[in-house]
């Protein structure tokens, strides 16, 4: 693995790289592609969001970076190596938290170690407690997941993905199951966690404002077969807050993306 803190070259090198990536689940020629011709480089500590209408293959894209799915066309690489299986330095935050209801919050956070290696040490437990503290969940550590609100559950999902300290964090519509207010708050929580643990993030969402609020760049996808409509630089200053949402530039960017998403659907 490359050392990520040294030379300029490494800083510029893509952590995640997709080269004309396409995929179809069924290899027969007459079946349509799910995604097609995706080119994207994600650099160190960059926050890239992918937006697109439902069914455009955003989640397929994430699964290919995660190594859960091998693309039928093109190549996905992480740290310049083609992805052939899931990697230890890539963490996933799932839709709807995906916590195990039979484990306490702390055990859910420690689950990746327990599941991967069969056990964990006292220092691992210390790390889990630190993560819980950071996410403001210390007093809920011994509760069961269903005793937590949806927002808290998803915070557990995020720190579980951070347990193995991955370089890359993949987030698959992580806030889509939450109500609007919780959703806005957890967005800021995520930015806070990201600031404390800088990671390279690929964030899948169907919320345009969420994408603009959180990310450095946004990949806008068309409806199926998903192709790249635009790659937008989000030049809003950080740290972002509720003020960001009220700025004119925020409105411009969301309008721009909205144009891409809705225009192609208007009947000619």
């Amino acid at each position, binding site marked *: 693995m490359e050392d990520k803190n040294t030379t300029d070259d490494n800083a510029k090198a893509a952590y995640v790289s997709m080269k004309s990536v396409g995929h179809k689940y069924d290899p027969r020629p007459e079946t349509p592609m799910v995604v097609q011709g995706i080119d994207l480089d994600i650099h160190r500590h960059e926050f890239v969001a992918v937006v697109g209408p439902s069914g455009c293959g955003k989640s397929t894209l994430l*699964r290919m970076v*995660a*190594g*859960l799915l091998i693309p039928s066309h093109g190549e996905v690489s992480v740290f310049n190596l083609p992805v052939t*299986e*899931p990697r*230890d330095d*890539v963490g*996933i935050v*799932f*839709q*709807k938290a*995906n916590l*195990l*209801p*039979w484990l306490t919050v702390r055990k859910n956070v420690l*689950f*990746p170690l*327990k*599941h*991967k290696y*069969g056990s964990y040490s006292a220092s691992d437990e210390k790390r889990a407690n630190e993560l819980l503290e950071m996410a403001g969940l210390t007093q809920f550590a011994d509760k*069961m997941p*269903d005793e937590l609100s949806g927002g808290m559950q998803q915070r557990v999902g995020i720190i579980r993905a951070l347990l193995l300290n991955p370089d890359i964090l993949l987030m698959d519509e992580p806030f889509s199951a939450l109500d609007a207010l919780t959703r806005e708050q957890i967005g800021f929580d995520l930015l806070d966690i990201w600031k404390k643990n800088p990671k390279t993030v690929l964030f899948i969402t169907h919320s345009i404002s969420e994408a603009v609020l959180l990310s450095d760049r946004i990949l806008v996808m068309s409806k199926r077969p998903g192709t790249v409509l635009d790659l937008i630089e989000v030049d809003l200053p950080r740290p972002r807050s509720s003020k960001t949402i009220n700025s004119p530039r925020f409105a411009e960017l969301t309008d721009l993306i909205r144009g891409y998403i809705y225009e192609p659907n208007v009947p000619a």
Partner: protein
Amino acid sequence: MNPTYQPKSWLGQQANRFAPGLFFIGLVLLWELICRFGNVPNYILPSPSAIFTAFFDVEFSRWLTHLWATLRVALMGFALSIVIAIPLSISMMRSELMNRVLYPALIVIQSTPVVAVAPLIIVLLGTDDPSRVLITCLITFFPLVVSTTTGMLETPPEMIELSQSLRAPRYRETWQIRIPYAIPHIFSGLRVSITLAIIGAVVAEFVAAEEGLGYFIQFSTSFFKIPQAFAGLIFLSVISLLLFKSIQWIQAWWFPWSLPKKK
């Protein structure tokens, strides 16, 4: 939980609360009245009071002997079917080949009436516990296999992806994700199986036994001691109910998270 009727007045609430008990008591009273005033002889349909006295016609130690014999066979058969069903379900879930080979065999076993096979098993294994336990096991293991397999197969794909993303060994996917996920399903299978276990033990006793409640009922009936037979039957229902309840208690005690949430 389905929405239940909630009366407003205190009396109404009490009546609502005790409705199942009152219904049961009413039924027993009606039965008693029919027997008394309809002059139904005890050897046709004994009255509840005659059944009650019949309990004391039989020595307590004899009751215990019969009760223990049935309970022992039922529990051994039940335990054996757990030991067989869980690994069988895991292997059918993990291997498509095992599934294709075993599933038709299971269907054949399940659709063969165990009552008809029971005498053959007695011929094969003798008249002792092993054949009775096997008969019980044959009756009880199918619901367990079905519920366990269903539960494991219904595990949400995201949980499986979590396991895959960690590149965990498959046995841990089974033990740390699929089996815990299947716990509520397994318990509904266990609840069905435990009552079937009593049926299995009784069927076995009907075919060949010198003790047990099933044997006792058959024996009493053949001597026209019908109130005694009914008393035995009540014992059977009571242990069946208690076993069913104990499965629920075990689930509530060991796996409280697996119970449906109260609104």
